[in-house]
């Protein structure tokens, strides 16, 4: 392709057409903060871990104090979820450390996607846990409220359905918001990863 040869010739000839950056400018640059997506993923993930873990402290305890069984069950879940959180954080840290800008492009992209997936699974796990506990609470509350003893079945079902619906709406909203953040953050990376993978198909 003769146009490409022409371009190559021109490309290699025009090395000196760039405005040169001085050494003192480079010194300044290396002390500035990076704005790379890896840094953003790191910051957002840490915020997510902290937020989700502090969420359990926000759940009011008093409403369950009457039931020993559910109380004990939620206690167990609590301890379990600390273990799970630690496990996810370990995975996240391991994946994060494996991100190296000197690996080949495909490997780098895979490492970033994996790091991000760890947090995604953590979020999914937490949202399902919240859903599960909320459902438990809804039924517990309904069972202990006056409408239960009134034996008004349609009313009971209606109350349950409305509560479940509201919880679901809330969780879907949280999930969508979450997807949006990462969608914006990783749009370019995902596009390029698909493109790169297509070459090797």
């Amino acid at each position: 392709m003769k146009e490409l040869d022409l371009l190559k010739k021109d490309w290699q000839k025009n090395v000196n057409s760039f405005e040169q950056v001085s050494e003192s400018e480079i010194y300044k640059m290396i002390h500035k903060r990076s704005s790379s997506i890896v840094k953003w993923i790191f910051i957002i993930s840490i915020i997510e871990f902290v937020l989700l873990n502090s969420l359990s402290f926000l759940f009011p305890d008093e409403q369950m104090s009457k039931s020993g069984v559910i109380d004990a069950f939620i206690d167990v879940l609590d301890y379990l979820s600390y273990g799970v959180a630690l496990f996810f954080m370990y995975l996240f840290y391991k994946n994060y450390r494996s991100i190296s800008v000197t690996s080949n492009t495909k490997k780098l992209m895979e490492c970033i996607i994996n790091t991000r997936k760890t947090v995604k699974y953590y979020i999914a796990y937490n949202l399902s846990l919240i859903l599960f506990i909320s459902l438990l609470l809804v039924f517990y509350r309904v069972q202990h409220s006056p409408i239960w003893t009134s034996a008004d079945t349609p009313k009971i079902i209606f109350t349950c359905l409305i509560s479940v619906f509201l919880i679901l709406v809330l969780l879907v909203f949280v999930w969508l918001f979450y997807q949006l953040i990462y969608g914006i953050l990783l749009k370019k990376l995902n596009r390029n990863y698909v493109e790169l993978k297509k070459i090797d198909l």
Partner: protein
Amino acid sequence: MSDNLEHSFVKQLQENQNIIHKICRLYTNGDDAHKDLFQEITIQLWKAFPKFRGDSKFSTWAYRVALNTAITLYRKTKRSINTIEFEGRHHFLNDVEYDYEEEEQLKLMYKAVYQLNDIEKALIFMYLEDKDYQEISETLGISEVNARVKMNRIKGKLKKILNPLGI
């Protein structure tokens, strides 16, 4: 020690900065975006520098980090290409004898290259830099055969952009 490291890095980068400028030229449009990407690549190079062993040339090592930063780590996406900006920014005819036809062809060619996607640009960039297919495949993490196939497809794509009717 760290001062020495810093000094050695700055010196080598200063000498090899055209590699980064070329990548910035390919992946951004406009001076601000160029400077922004240049800075991000510099930061990434500096962060990775302690692991640079010197068993490859600084420039070879810098190619990889710079390309990875432009394709993967750099968040801001490019806006559509502004022709006026494009023509004002490139002075590729400064020291060439005036050949109108060649100039036109070059302009079109640069414009066509800008229309490629990020991965295709990476391949074209390494081709323009006279890298062999082994290095291209190692840098991108694709097989050598597929790198060749892709390169041929890109040439086809460029041809099509230059001459959409195929005349």
